[in-house]
């Protein structure tokens, strides 16, 4: 082998890292119907919701984002490196394929004001809350 991972050394130093790696590997090998991919984080406040997901190496032009009312659907693809004849993988851990993920949002959002950014492999989608749903203060008028 021309390159070999120092797994034993790593494990001795930081055993939880190996645990994390095994976790991730399990996550990848489970069927997509059981575990949703890609994992997302959802942030919110009274005015907006933000969804982030890690999709490194995905061509942002090919990412499809659909927002309908209270749900957002992401669709994208990552293709494997095309190897020439005689070339071979000695390790293949990264995910490939077509993925679709639907996420339920905490409130309805303004579909025409959704903004998405893709930077360093992270997709960031900001969705302002629908005006009609925002909490409102009601002023009490004097008689």
């Amino acid at each position, binding site marked *: 082998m021309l390159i070999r991972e120092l797994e034993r050394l790593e494990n001795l130093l930081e055993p939880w890292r190996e645990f994390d790696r095994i976790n991730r590997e399990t996550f990848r090998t489970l069927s997509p119907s059981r575990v949703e991919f890609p994992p997302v984080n959802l942030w919110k406040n009274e005015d907006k919701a933000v969804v982030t997901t890690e999709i490194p190496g995905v061509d942002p032009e090919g990412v499809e984002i659909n927002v309908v009312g209270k749900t957002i659907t992401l669709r994208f693809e990552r293709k494997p490196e095309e*190897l020439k004849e005689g070339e071979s993988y000695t390790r293949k851990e990264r995910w490939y394929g077509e993925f679709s993920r639907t996420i339920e949002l905490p409130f309805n959002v303004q579909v025409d004001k959704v903004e998405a950014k893709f930077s*360093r492999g992270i997709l960031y989608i900001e969705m302002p809350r629908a005006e009609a749903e925002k909490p409102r203060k009601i002023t009490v008028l004097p008689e």
Partner: protein
Amino acid sequence: MAETVKDISRKNRKIYAPAVDIFETANNILVIADMPGVDEKSVDITIEKNLLTIHGMIDSTTHDNLELAFSEYGVGDYQRAFSLSDEIDRSNIKATVKDGVLKLVLPKSEKIKTRKIEVIKET
């Protein structure tokens, strides 16, 4: 540079081992690592003797005035180490980062490349 990056990140951040693909072409070994959140300024690649270490540092700023409603993935720095055989030309290793993916090109040394195309003259 390498030291400061490590010193800061070691304190209280999680470190993940990035998923990697490794494949061999006629002249190179390619290592491709998923490191979302990392760019060319925040990745360190060091070679010490035969130890190749990849270290990526992410900018973990939290979102202003937002609370985390739910979280399915964790965020942290990246580190992974590999040992190289003598058949890799250490002086010509190249690294690029694009869209959170690190690509390392490790050239095979001339010694092993030529060994493959050796032709013995008929006597």
